[in-house]
């Protein structure tokens, strides 16, 4: 059985699930806050503004900063953790349902696992699409510009003046608001799926959360979550995380997780829910 049939099956059975309905309310929280901030400043946010606010994160916390001064990026964290949570259990649930029938028919463990990796990347894509649609809805309802333009006034208001009055080219806005957060979240989600091969899903989920918390307090580009925080990008602040290496790091982790995971899955036991 070829890989495409397995991928098609996973996309049919695992992509559109009832729990996806949780995404718009999750995405609406930062959008509402963004709307309140721009409204009080008397300007309107574009689609890119909403998206960048969703995945803004917080500026690097320096050693001199007191904890009272630094705001904890709770909405950013909820939005990213939401994605990790939604994609935590499908592969294991599938193995305890029709997955065993499918995997023995496929005759190939590696293909089954790779299909799950592709599903994971697509499911993260769907998550970001739903966040984008929620942001689009807010933009349209508030009469904002449904585009990648992010004017200096809105940027200054939303990013609390950290950008130094810069405007953002559309491609940069796309990179910071969609591409880098997507790659970062996909990498963490695949890492979580790979870890599920050796430990219980709840512990893998906790590791993902710890990684995100680490990235909040430690702005090293090596800590994955930093790539998903637009405000920490070198395109906005000096000494920030360079987008190129951050994207490369995410791609490397995605590839490594696929390779190591399929190698491990080939050797692991497929037990039932009872075992």
């Amino acid at each position, binding site marked *: *059985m070829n890989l495409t*049939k*397995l991928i098609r*099956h996973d996309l049919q*059975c695992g992509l559109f699930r009832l729990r996806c309905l949780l995404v718009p309310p999750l995405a609406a929280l930062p959008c509402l806050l963004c709307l309140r901030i721009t409204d009080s400043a008397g300007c309107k946010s574009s689609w890119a503004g909403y998206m960048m606010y969703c995945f803004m994160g917080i500026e690097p916390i320096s050693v001199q900063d007191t904890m009272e001064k630094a705001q904890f990026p709770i909405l950013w964290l909820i939005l990213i953790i939401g994605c990790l949570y939604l994609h935590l259990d499908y592969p294991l649930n599938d193995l*305890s*349902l*029709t997955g*065993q*029938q*499918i*995997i*023995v*028919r*496929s*005759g*190939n*463990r*590696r293909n089954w696992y790779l299909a799950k990796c592709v599903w994971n990347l697509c499911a993260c894509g769907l998550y970001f699409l739903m966040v984008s649609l929620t942001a689009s809805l807010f933009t349209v309802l508030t009469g904002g510009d449904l585009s990648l333009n992010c004017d200096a006034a809105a940027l200054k208001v939303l990013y609390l003046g950290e950008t130094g009055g810069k405007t953002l080219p559309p491609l940069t806005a796309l990179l910071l608001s969609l591409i880098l957060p997507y790659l970062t979240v996909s990498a963490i989600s695949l890492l979580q799926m790979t870890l599920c091969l050796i430990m219980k899903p709840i512990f893998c989920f906790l590791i993902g959360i710890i990684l995100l918390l680490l990235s909040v307090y430690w702005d090293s580009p090596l800590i994955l979550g930093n790539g998903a925080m637009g405000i920490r990008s070198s395109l906005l602040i000096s000494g920030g995380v360079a987008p190129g290496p951050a994207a490369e790091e995410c791609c490397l982790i995605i590839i490594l997780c696929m390779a190591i995971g399929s190698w491990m899955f*080939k*050797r692991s*036991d*497929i*037990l*039932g*829910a*009872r075992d």
Partner: protein
Amino acid sequence: MKIDITHATKEIGGSILLDDVTLTLQSGRIYGLQGPNGSGKTMLLRLIAGLIRPSSGSVAIDGKKLGADMDFPPSVGLLIENPAFLPNNTGLKNLELLASLKGTTDSGQIRRTLSRTGLDPDDPRKVRKYSLGMKQRLGVAAAIMEQPDLILLDEPTNALDDKGIACICDILRQERERGALIVLACHDAEILYPLSDEVIKVCDGRVERGQMK
């Protein structure tokens, strides 16, 4: 088809689930696995299906080692633990979905298999509305629809009434006549002994060859 299990031991978390199992199984025969709960019957089925790897020893199918030369037996139908299907699809749709992955079975064959197991192929009900017995019949149908060379069944008569049990026994006899190798785990000796060509007793992970016809 010939299956050779050689000194296979399976240990998980310090517990020995299968202990030095050595068996040879041949096509055209029904092998019954008998033993108390937790004796290792299901683990033995999982081992033959390629779902678990032996900690030591090997499983070979027609001389090819599972896990080294291939991941799973080339032609296998299985029902292990409870039959699990997509609850929002009909029985027919579930089987069509499974069959489409391999592409060796047409819709007519699937419908005939459903009828053989006593299910109506045109039943519009979703699987979530099925009774336990109907799910069990569907599980057996999924295991045999592609006419596999190897059929592994774990308690296939669970939740079935007398008529259902007789139906499944008839199907298994027909599959044996076709030349399939059938391994069947069942705690009910009244079903297992008349049906099996050989009964293999499983106790604490060890096997003991028993009655042979």
